[in-house]
């Protein structure tokens, strides 16, 4: 990257810590600080967010002074697919029901692997897993998950 950032890992950690610290500090202004003997709701968060910003600044400084290892490749594909299929499962669960959302989760996430391909063995395994989940979690443990969700009129 640029020549300013010498150690990207330290630099970005610093940005992250400082950013979170600053947001937490900003939000905590609305909570009463109180005094040391009668700590308000804002006392502990304010102190902590101050500390986090401090560590953030230290990491930032190190990021621009000391040379460090490069960031390395970011696995965009698996990261996005895993996150998206998890979110999709959450969205679909009450709407389309367990069976459909599991199909989406299993085949969606599996496509994140470089070894993914449709084959009868893997498909059978997936169907077995769905059957297992239906039997154990809905029939056995009685979790309130619909088999078929509101979209199918359940």
């Amino acid at each position, binding site marked *: 990257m640029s020549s300013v950032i010498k150690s990207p890992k330290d630099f970005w950690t610093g940005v992250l810590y400082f950013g979170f610290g600053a947001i937490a500090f900003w939000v905590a202004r609305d*909570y009463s600080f109180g*005094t040391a003997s009668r*700590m308000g709701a804002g006392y502990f968060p304010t102190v902590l967010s101050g500390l986090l910003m401090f560590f953030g600044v230290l990491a930032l400084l190190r990021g621009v002074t000391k040379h460090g290892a490069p960031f390395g490749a970011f696995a965009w594909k698996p990261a996005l697919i895993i996150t998206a299929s998890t979110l999709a499962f959450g969205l679909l669960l009450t709407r389309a029901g367990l069976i459909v959302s599991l199909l989406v989760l299993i085949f969606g996430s599996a496509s994140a692997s470089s070894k993914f391909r449709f084959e009868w063995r893997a498909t059978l395994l997936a169907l077995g897993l769905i059957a297992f989940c239906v039997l154990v979690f809905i029939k056995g443990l009685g979790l309130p998950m619909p088999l078929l969700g509101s979209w199918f009129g359940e």
Partner: protein
Amino acid sequence: MDASIFANLWLGLQTAGSFINLFYCLVGVMLGTAIGVLPGLGPVATIAMLLPITFGLPPVSSLIMLAGIFYGAQYGGSTTAILINLPGESSSIVTALDGHEMAKQGRAGKALATAAWASFFAGTVTTILIALFSPPLAEVALKFGPAEYFSLMVLGLVASVVLAHGSLMHALGMIVFGLLLGIVGTDVNSGVARYSFDMPELIDGINFVVVAMGVFGLGEIISNLQHETERSLMVKKVTGLMLDKDDFKAIAAPVLRGTLLGSILGILPGGGAMLSSFAAYALEKKVSKNSANFGKGAIEGVAAPESANNAGAQASFIPMLTLGIPSNPVMALMIGAMIIQGIQPGPSVMVEQPALFWGLVASMWIGNAMLVILNLPLIGLWVKMVSVPYHLLFPAILVFCCIGVFSLANTSFDIYFMAIFGLAGYLFRKLECEPAPMLLGFILGPMMEEFLRRALLLSKGNPMVLVTRPISATMLVMAALVMITVMLPALRKKREEVFVEDD
């Protein structure tokens, strides 16, 4: 004193020996071993995944099962270390050095048997140690005021940094980050909903299972997918599981030393299985007559770290059970499980729930015995599981994570949060920010605030109370010493070396 210990252990054996508890102990150790053997699934993610299932069980049974998963995973981790030179757990990294060498020479059976017996011996000794040391420790802890508790937690958090990868500053930042995350939710004193951003789901705070599953479960899956590898089994069939007289002679002293070292290091906050196994291997290499053979398949090089890591893993229950302080993420999850079961972790557990306390202690011994009896004959099954392809496994892990998280509060909101924490977990790994200290901070955060509040209320706002009370001061000094030692250049280099082997 002595008589009461036997009475206590007897109570424990009765509790742990009931049919239902034996059953859950067995389920725990079997699941644990499977997890240790299967690729890319750590004990933290698994315990988080299975926690929701244990909510319906009686508290003793659920803790017995979770503990079984923990030391079972330790055991399974050594199996993969020996058979395919891929340590399933960070604590079995050193076992791979000599254990895999033995396997290459066709002595895989011997290495596995050594690991099993060494672990069993260490487990037995540590069970007795827990029984001996917990009551006096809890008695001391009962005298603790809020100031002492606060300082103890500071010490625990600082110590967790020692074992974290990467730079010290990153780890300290992660602790503070975790503490802040722990604050989300309603403040008990004022009733103010903090950091809830007007989302009703956040008023009760973020469930630690959501954080643990996201960061350790999903985060690890993404990480593993980046470096997908095939596992190849060199040893298809394991034979020769018997140890002869000479073997027992060779491993007796290393096992004793390993057990001793492991139990001492395990008690320390931040210590535990991994540190113990490294230390034991290093020690054995120095003192053993056979040290020239280390790294070339020395049986002592398997026995010492295996006994040490099991001793360390079990000894880490001591601070958790007596003080309510977790020394590693697994213990943090155990504490979370206790809180959900309505038990306030701390020194009073032993007095108020003797059956639970001693039942758990006794179950560890029973569980270790089960591991030896079951796993050596079942080795064929574990060998098969070693080579399960990861691309068939991880969608199933994801399914169990999602359903588990949903079942916490029957809301999809937690699933969304888990997804976000998964992404964050992966990012942290890329930035070399270890998530373990964050989880400890997250669990301890609300407790620390409460204790600090009470300590300062009692002292009328004078922060000096933390250093004028002797026990509290001692702990803060220890925390400072830990920090200084970690920063010393010599140790720093050593620490980095240790972690290089890990990567």
